[in-house]
Each structure stands twice: as C-alpha cells, then as structure tokens.
C-alpha cells in the first residue's frame, strides 16, 4: 500500500521531522510577514487570476507534454513522455517560481529583490521577472559557477541584474546562498529574498513547491488526455528539488504511480564528491531547514560536486526528506557520464538539447522505460534547456 502523504507543512513549517525555521533572529519578523502575505495571497482569487495570466501570457503555459518516439525506441521499452519545462520562458521551470514570488514582493511593498543561483537559470528567471515588474535585482553566484555558466551571467546582466560572484568556500550554489542570506540579514526591511528552490526556512519550501505544482497539475491532465491514463512512473532530477516537487505534487495521491527522484552522483568514483544528499547524507540543519545533508562526522558541510551546476548542492528540500522517509518517492542517482550520455541520446533522437540537470532524470527515465517494458508509460520532467551546457558537453565528448 502506498503511504498517504501531505503537500503542506504544519504550522511550525515542518514536513514530518524536516523543515522548520533555523535562521538568525534578525530574519524572524520578515519570515513572519512573508508567511502572512503568502497565506493572504493564496486565499485571494485576484492573486490567482493574475498568476494564471502570467503563466499563460508571460511563461507560455501550459508547457507541452511531448511523446519522445525515437528516444522510446532507443531505450526499448515503455513510452517516454517529456514534460517540456525547457519550453517555458527563460528556458526552465524556474520562472514558475520567480514570477509568483515577484508578484508577492510587489504585494508586500518591498522594493528590491535578491536571489542566489547555481546554474544561472534561477538567476535569469529572477532577473527577467524583476525586469517585468520594474524591481531592482541582485544575484549571488559562486565564482566557479560564473565561469562554467558564463552565458547565463551575460543574460542576467543584459536583463538588468547585478551579478555578484561569490569567492567563499566551494564557490558554488551553497556559498551563493550563504552570501544571499548575509545580504538579506542586512537588507530585509525593504528587500525580498527570492529563493530558487524548495529549500530554506518556512515558508519558502511551501511557497516554492506550491508555485511549481503547476507542472504536475498540467502533466496529470495531459497524460490522461494524450496517453489515455496516468503514467507508470514519474521521474525528475533533484538538487534542491523544485522541479521534482512541482511534478510529484500532481501524482503523490495516485497510488499506482511510482515516483523517482534522481540525485547527482558526480563522477561516481568511490570517495569522490557528489551531490546525493538523500542517498548518502544524514539529517542536519543548513540554510534555515532540517533536511538530509552531506556533512562530516563533526557536522561540517561537505563539498558537493556535479557536472550539472544546478544539482551541485549538499542539501535538499525538506519535503523530499519526508517523501524519502515515508517511502512515497524512491531516490536514485545518475553520474556525470550517465547525464552526458543521456544529453547526447536526447539531442540525437529528438533534436532537444536538455539541461545537464534534467539529463540526470532522462538517464534514469530510459532505464525505467526498459524495466517497465512495452505498453507502459514513463513521464520525465525535462526541467530546463541545455544551451547553457554546450561548452561543458563539448569539452567532455568528441564532436
């Protein structure tokens, strides 16, 4: 029997044993105000009407559900369906969250926004949403990520955002979040922090998950309409885990649908850094919430690694930690090489360049299609497009 599950945190911001509000006292009042504004907006039909208009007219929703015929043949099994978040405005699911948060920012009367970014897709989506609303935007990005995703740095600057390279620690997403939090402690009275994933203190995991759940709502209707029923399996990549929560929310109550999250295993070599917080970590507290975490025996955070910068994070959202513990979702891993192979497979078979993050889901999706076999249906969340990754992939293969 599939355990029943919840898609809402309790009044303390907890998802079972996970989540909560672990932040400096300086931020507590702002989080209380944010939660009050969120609850009020969520109950306001005008807010939803405006969000719906933005989804249709700015993002281009609904995004297509796409039957990957030749990828299905290549895998040799169940039909593979792609939820095409790569076709959303700015090229990834991130815009679903940022337009919603900017709408809330305007409602709260805040005059500036901050964001962190790993691969740069959340930074670009925040910069675009901020430009749309005419609100100044600053984006923190690990210096290592500014080098490997320089294309997105240029996009953010063209969209009017200030981009601050972060040279602390591992110079990746974790350190960008640290720096954004430090800025927010200083600027919280007039600034909203647009967190990019289902991480951080309550109410962020709830709010971002709710805004991303449009992916799963659409996909469920589209599967019934186009495939004639619910999928046998749903697959999504998990860094912080927002595209995954977005699509999973549409299917958690469907007991017959198996759900899989795919974490990044890095090189896959014994002892080498990776990003499989759920698979290989243990519960801890980072960036405002209790969740699975890569940490050493002393509670120091361990450096993560993935070829996909958006997955290169030592933690994961608290809703995922709950879904792991209650068994509703199975968490798998894919290595850097698996992701690059899947990137090439999808490019050649369908003419689609997927983000390296999404390629992790494609890799395990193909395996699941094989094991489920003909007659079945596998739904993969194609969370973003891979234009940003052409240099990384070109460096890894012989063109």
């Amino acid at each position: 029997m599939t355990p029943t599950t919840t898609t809402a945190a309790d009044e303390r911001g907890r998802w079972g044993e996970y989540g909560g509000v672990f932040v400096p006292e300086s931020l507590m009042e702002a989080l209380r105000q944010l939660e009050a504004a969120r609850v009020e907006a969520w109950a306001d039909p005008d807010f939803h009407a405006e969000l719906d208009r933005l989804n249709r007219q700015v993002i281009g929703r609904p995004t297509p559900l796409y039957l990957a015929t030749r990828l299905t043949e290549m895998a040799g099994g169940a039909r593979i369906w792609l939820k095409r978040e790569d076709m959303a405005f700015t090229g990834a699911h991130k815009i679903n969250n940022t337009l919603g948060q900017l709408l809330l920012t305007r409602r709260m009367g805040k005059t500036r926004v901050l964001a962190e970014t790993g691969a740069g897709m959340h930074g670009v989506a925040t910069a675009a949403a901020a430009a749309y609303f005419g609100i100044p935007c600053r984006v923190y990005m690990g210096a290592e990520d500014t080098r490997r995703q320089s294309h997105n740095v240029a996009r953010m600057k063209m969209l009017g955002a200030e981009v601050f390279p972060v040279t602390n620690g591992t110079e990746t997403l974790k350190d960008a979040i640290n720096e954004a939090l430090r800025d927010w402690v200083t600027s919280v009275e007039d600034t909203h922090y647009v967190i990019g994933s289902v991480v951080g203190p309550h109410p962020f995991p709830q709010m971002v998950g709710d805004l991303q759940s449009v992916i799963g709502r659409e996909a469920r209707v589209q599967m019934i309409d186009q495939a004639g029923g619910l999928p046998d399996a749903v697959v999504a990549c998990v860094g912080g885990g927002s595209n995954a929560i977005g699509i999973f929310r549409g299917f958690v109550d469907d007991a017959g649908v198996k759900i899989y999250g795919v974490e990044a295993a890095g090189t896959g070599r014994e002892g080498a850094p990776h990003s499989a917080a759920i698979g290989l970590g243990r519960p801890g507290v980072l960036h405002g919430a209790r969740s699975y975490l890569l940490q050493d025996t002393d509670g120091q955070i361990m450096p993560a690694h993935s070829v996909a910068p958006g997955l290169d994070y030592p933690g994961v959202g608290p809703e995922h930690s709950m879904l792991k513990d209650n068994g509703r979702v199975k968490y798998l891993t894919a290595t850097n090489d698996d992701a690059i192979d899947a990137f090439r497979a999808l490019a050649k078979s369908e003419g689609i360049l997927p983000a390296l993050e999404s390629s992790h889901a494609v890799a395990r999706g193909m395996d699941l299609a094989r094991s489920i076999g003909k007659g079945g249906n596998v739904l993969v969340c194609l969370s973003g497009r891979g234009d940003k990754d052409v240099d990384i992939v070109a460096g890894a293969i012989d063109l």
Partner: protein
Amino acid sequence: MSIEVKFDLGAHLRQKVAGGRKLVVPYLTCGLPTPQDFIDLYVSLGEHADAIEVGIPFSDPVMDGPVIQEASNRALEAGITVDGCLGLIKQALKRSSTPAVVMTYYNPIHSAGLEAFAAKAATAGVSGLIVPDLPFEECAELDRALVAQELALIQLVAPTTPGERASMLAAASRGWVYAVSRMGVTGMQNALASAASEVVNRIKPFTDLPVLVGVGISSPALATEACRVADGVIVGTAVVKRVLDDDLPGVVALIQAISEAVNPSELKIENR
C-alpha cells in the same frame, strides 16, 4: 545536607553589574592562532574580561562577516574539531576563572546529539551557549538538554524584533540577553547604529539579567557609547582581526582599553 551549587552565569554577571561594573566579553575563534596560543590568550584576556565567547568554527557561518568567516576557515583547515575545541576550553579554564560561553551554529550541535553535546560542554566547564541560527521557536529541545546540565542558552534580540517578542525573548534568556546592535552580520563599524540603544531599551524592562550589546563594537569609544544604556559589550571582529594578524598583544591591549574605558571608576581606585 550538602547541595552541590553549580556555577550560575546569570547570577554571577548580575552580581558584577550590581557592583557597578560594565561587562566586557571578547570573542575568540577556538584554536587560533595555534591551540597553545589560544589557551594563553584566553588566560591573558580573562584578566580584563567578564566572560569569553569561544567560537566553535562552522563551515557555513551565515551570521558572520568576512573576518570571522576567514578565522573559521583557518581553524577548520588546521583540523580543529568540536571535541578538540571543548578540550582547549577545558585546559584554558584550568588556568582562568573567567567563564566560557560557546558560540556555534546549530548543525555541529545537532550532529553531535543535543544531550551528548550539552554533557560534553558541561564537562569542559562551559557556562553557556549562543546559537545564532537557532531562534526561540526551534530551541526548546536544546534548551531542555542545556537545563539538565545547568548551562545557559543566551537569546538574541534584533533591531527588527517587535516589542512583544523582545519581551518573550528577554524572559526566556539565561546568562545574559544579547542585543544585536544593527541589521547585518558580524563586522566592525565606525559609529554605533541608533538601533542599538532602542534594542536595549526594548529588552531592559523585561529582564534582570545583564543586557550586552554585540555586533560591530570595535573600539573603546563605541563600547563607551553602548554602555550608556547597556550593561556591557561583546567584542568579536575587532579581536579576531588582530588574532588573524598575529597581533596577540594588540588583542589584550584592546580588551584592557575597552574594559578601562567603560569602567573609569575602577581605574581611579586602582591608581590610588
């Protein structure tokens, strides 16, 4: 009947304040510049300080500015561990009667186990704990573990803390109440934010514990200004900067100068 009377940080500091003293609490990152120098520095500073805040380094200190981040990285790169820190504190306390308060983030405590951490800290002789990323709503479990060991959990009150909440935090705090002087992370500043005295005034009516101002207190002049309303100051970045520059005599001189500046009457008595 004999009752073991354990050390009560709040009562100890309250008594000093009642005697007219303004309190001075320097912050040291544990194990810097070297483990032995740290112990010696603790002992020297103890002669001028009323308590010493010892930072157990964490890899991701979001409440700290660049100087304390750098110190945390250096200490971690030198291989310091949580147990190692508590061991150094224990050794320092063999030579100094100045109470030690541990400042660290929640994850190292959570990782060790709350009760195990509290027991180890008590064994090392620690008097209290400051955990900047553990707000009141999340602290009940740790507080229970600390109460069992008679350790104080010090609450922080920020400029953005509304009045009613400030009164709740002041009432819940033990040891002292930490008034955060400004919106921002740890670091030095040239002027005291006007928020500092407002925060102190918001806390004062709700506690008989000392109210200490921290974040940005870097000189005798700023400490004196803060002590017009507060019962004392916490001096972090200005101390750690000198430790990073290997200027250990400068650390002691700074804390001595601050202690004398905020307690001018004591100086007069000594000079007589």
